[in-house]
């Protein structure tokens, strides 16, 4: 079985160089070359590659964001001119991190690491930065089949827990994303988003009023008229934020 490989880089020449390095090793087949992150997400989902060679700096979606959006078991090798992301790369379980200009010997070394992990099935699953609780983001990325939605954080009205997913509601649209509420909460700006209940995070800019309807039980009404239960802990959080 040839090793199925996807190359992701927004620069045509950079892709060509990586392709050349790949073609110098035996038993590899490049199943896709992608010029941006959206194409990459689609290709990785549809083609189930063994190895993904990916740049970090790309328009719209960077390399880390692409990995956050895809599922599957494949070896990741970053190829970039910037050395400052190396630590993060290993934290998301990348197999190796190559610096541009890529030299042949170093490429072969990375490739062998990747292949041995793929063949021995010792590949560690790609972790997302969101799961590492590291990344505060001003936008949420949601994959819907092969398509990617980029939702700016300020456009989000509420986030709701839905079994293994979170439902993100923004501007009248609903998106499902496979993530935990805790991860979502960690990613969003705590000055703006409050977890008012175990299963609800609201954008504080959308809050219209809070009413008491039973002892220790409150209801938050948003500007669009929707109402959400507020837990006691959630009310404390809200008050802390609003008092400031």
């Amino acid at each position, binding site marked *: 079985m040839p090793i199925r490989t996807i190359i992701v880089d*927004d*620069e045509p*020449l*950079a892709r060509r160089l990586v392709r050349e390095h790949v073609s110098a090793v035996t038993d590899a087949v490049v199943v896709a070359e992608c010029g941006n992150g959206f194409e990459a997400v689609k290709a990785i989902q549809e083609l189930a590659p063994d190895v993904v060679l990916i740049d970090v700096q790309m*328009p719209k979606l960077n390399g880390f964001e692409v990995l956050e959006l895809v599922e599957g078991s494949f070896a990741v090798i970053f190829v970039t001119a910037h050395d400052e992301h190396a630590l993060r790369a290993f934290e998301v379980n990348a197999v190796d991190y190559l*610096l541009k*200009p890529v030299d042949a010997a170093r490429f072969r070394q990375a490739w062998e690491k990747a292949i041995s992990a793929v063949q021995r099935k010792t590949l560690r699953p790609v972790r997302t930065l969101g799961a590492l609780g590291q990344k505060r983001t001003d936008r949420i990325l949601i994959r819907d089949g092969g398509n990617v939605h*980029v939702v700016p954080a300020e456009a989000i009205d509420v986030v709701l827990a839905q079994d293994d997913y979170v439902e993100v509601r923004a501007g009248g649209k609903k998106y499902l994303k496979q993530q935990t509420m805790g991860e979502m909460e960690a990613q969003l700006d705590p000055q703006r988003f409050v977890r008012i209940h175990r299963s609800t995070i609201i954008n504080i800019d959308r809050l219209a009023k809070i009413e008491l309807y039973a002892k220790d039980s409150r209801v938050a009404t948003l500007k669009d008229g929707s109402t959400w239960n507020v837990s006691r802990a959630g009310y404390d959080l809200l008050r802390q934020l609003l008092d400031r």
Partner: protein
Amino acid sequence: MHPLLAQRERLLLYLSGWAFLATLLAALTAPGRWTWFEAAALIVPVTLVYAFFSLSIWYLVRAMPLTTVPIPRLVGVHLVGALASSMAMVLVVQGWAAVLRELIRWSVALTAADLRLLFGGGVLLYLLAAATHFLLAAFETSREAERRSFEAQLLARDSELKALRAQIDPHFLFNSLNSISALTSADPAAARMMTERLANFFRASVAAGRQPLITLDQELGLARQYLEIEQVRFGTRLSVAVDADPDVLVLRIPSLLLQPIVENAVKHGIAQTIEGGCVRIEARRRGSQVHVRVTNPVDAESTGGPGTSFGLEAVRLRLRAIAAAEAALDARREARSFVVDMILPSDL
């Protein structure tokens, strides 16, 4: 050096303060038994000697500053100092009185009450002098701190200006070498041309960096060379338009001032968009000013612009250092583009 001895005016002020207090003390010790003149002749010279003696408090204040030595200990030390000095002063007054009696047969007799009064006055004078010295020390410290911070500012500005002289981003070099590496097998002629362009650009920018001012023509030439190299990397995503009035080309501008702006246009503009676009540079003459504008496309969905980037801030600082009043930099995000306007005096 003692701050009071360092300047004659200060010393005079200090001594006249003491002379005033000495006169006061003389007035207090002249309860009708002595004439004014007698009291003054007895007290004033001794007090002035005491004034000089009190200058030594400075070294005590320096050795035991208010900020580090515990207050009770300070109070103790200066109280002992006050009692001892005052005691000495009283002894000197008695001695001086004896001398006066011997010398000009004045009938000055000091009673126990006089001595107590003098002793009290001596203690007060010592404490007053100590307070003055503490004030002086605080004043000196704050002036020293001010001088140091000013020096640090000057140094920082100096090194900043050096650093700001547009350091070429090393990633530009790595990415260019990566492109050359890719071209080597597929298109050797293009690889060679890229190598030459890169070498020419670096040589020209190093030469420009050695001069404080270069012509706008030279600066635009550098920008063009830079963008040509980036065009190899970005392919069809990057197009370039340079439009300059012929009469501005000979004007001189600070070297490599445009370079970080153009780098930003590529790094934060072209590189962040999938479809790319045009980096446009315009240069116009407006009276005694040169107006330079750099425009680049930006990702419509991204929120921030490169307005706070280090590169632009560096340009702004350089402009301020070179011609604060007549130069300006304005960077703004429009719907789909980022515009940097730079105004420079034409007579640099």
